[in-house]
């Protein structure tokens, strides 16, 4: 049970959030309405996706105050508390790519060196900036016309249609293409949250004393470049690309990793 504590918590959170969104359309609930682009919590509190808002602003439209306030609330929350937690605790695509990754490990695809090296993890930041530029050129929020995240979410809330093919494409890409290809290399929303959450206070902390260098954490981590301190030094994972998914904490049998509050004093 210890091995899947955070995995289970994340799945429960993801399903609960998606179910609330689904219920808003299907049953008229007022707990969490809308989609990630813009939502309303309990019928009053606006929430909005900061990257979408930036794209819309770049396209040349001044958004309503509700959306701007919503984006501010989300930004502050992840900036101060959650880090990049949206990606692993909320985003539905995370379930798709986690499944692809799990299958990849089971099928031992990485042993076959099918990983394409030309795709770098920093590609997502280029795409993030490019999305804003394209939005300005074309006059429409550019990532939103193909975002598998909102396509999948709207699919769950309103029905999929042919949009399901985008989700399948992501699955196949992560399974047979690049390891962690979408979430770890391409997704501009993940890039935006990496930047927003890079100074947040909830962090995984490594205890070098307990570590037996089994490297289970690095195998399971979707962004394992952030775990550079494993078996080297007792510090927190401070890289914004860490999604706070807690898989490393789950799989560690030596009590060498745990969630903690970032200590600013140590620096």
């Amino acid at each position, binding site marked *: 049970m210890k091995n899947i504590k955070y995995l289970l918590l994340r799945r429960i959170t993801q399903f609960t959030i998606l179910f609330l969104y689904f219920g808003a359309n299907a049953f008229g609930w007022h707990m969490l309405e809308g989609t990630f*682009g813009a939502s309303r919590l309990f019928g009053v509190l606006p929430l909005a996706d900061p990257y979408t808002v930036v794209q819309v602003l770049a396209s040349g*439209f001044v*958004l309503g105050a509700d*959306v701007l306030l919503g984006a501010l609330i989300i930004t502050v929350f992840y900036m101060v508390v959650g880090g990049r937690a949206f990606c692993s605790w909320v985003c539905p695509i995370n379930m798709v790519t986690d499944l692809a990754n799990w299958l990849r490990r089971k099928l031992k695809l990485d042993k076959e060196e099918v990983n394409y090296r030309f795709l770098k993890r920093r590609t997502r930041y*280029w795409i993030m900036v490019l999305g804003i*530029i394209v939005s300005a050129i074309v006059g429409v929020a550019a990532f939103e*016309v193909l975002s598998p995240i909102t396509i999948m979410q709207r699919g769950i809330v309103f029905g999929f249609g042919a*949009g399901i093919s985008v989700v399948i494409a992501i699955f196949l890409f992560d399974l047979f293409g690049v390891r962690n290809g979408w979430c770890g290399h391409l997704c501009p929303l993940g890039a935006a949250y990496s930047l927003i959450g890079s100074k947040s206070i909830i962090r995984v902390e490594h205890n070098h004393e307990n570590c037996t260098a089994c490297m289970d954490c690095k195998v399971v981590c979707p962004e394992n470049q952030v775990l550079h301190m494993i078996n080297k030094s007792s510090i927190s994972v401070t890289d914004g690309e860490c999604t706070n998914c807690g898989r490393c904490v789950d799989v560690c049998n030596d009590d060498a990793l745990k969630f903690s509050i970032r200590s600013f004093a140590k620096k």
Partner: protein
Amino acid sequence: MANSDNNRRKFMATTLQSVGLTALGGMLWSGYSDEVKASPLVLRPPGALPENDFLKACIKCGLCAEACVNRDSNKNKDGSKRAGTLQMAKGGDHKLIGTPFFIPTEVPCFMCDDIPCVPVCPSGALDMPSLLNKEQELDINKARMGLAVVHKESCIAFWGIQCDACYRACPIQGEAITIEHQKNERTGKHAFLLPIVHSDVCTGCGLCEQACVTEKPAIFVLPIEHSTGRAGSHYVKGWDEKDQERVKDAKEIKTKNERSEKEASDYLNMEVEY
């Protein structure tokens, strides 16, 4: 020295590659985005901004569609819920994905008095002020979702068969669609009862299109941009003060060519060779 030269070359090559690939991606992405937003024949919710602005502004949250389908009036007699008017564009709908629209023949807009879909819009894509009347109340009659157009060749009323299905379905009965009487010269003793749509009243709700009895509706709603013409400032109703205001600030346009260099009297009665 050679090593640092190599490093520099490698750095330059990598930078060039990144910039090149980004430019490639940007072009493909721009082209794709531009194509997918070009779906002009789409009917938007009440109060929607002009299509180009709407596509920018809509944040694809679906709050309008949720408010539409969950409104109190959207229930059958047994209490079960009906399908909503507003749909969210899915892949395969060939409309900008995630934006709300409606198809009158499936579910038209029922023109709710309280317009539940509009005040919930957080982004401003559905412009509430455009639907306020003089008393600052929401007035659905101010909506211009589209404009109904009659194809007179397939409208059986124009054949002389008596049908006023669209007229009766119209929520602004007798104003948005009126029935014009005309003599049927073919029989010599019957009247045509012809449906005429008035674009200053029609909201484009589509109830007429849904009600139309012909196999493919002879009255149908098109977006305003596609169902209207424009006379332009060359043509002004000289008898209409309001219409004259259209050209109040018109500027004189001077054409400059070989001919304009002369006075009109110099050339009007002469043959000019061009």
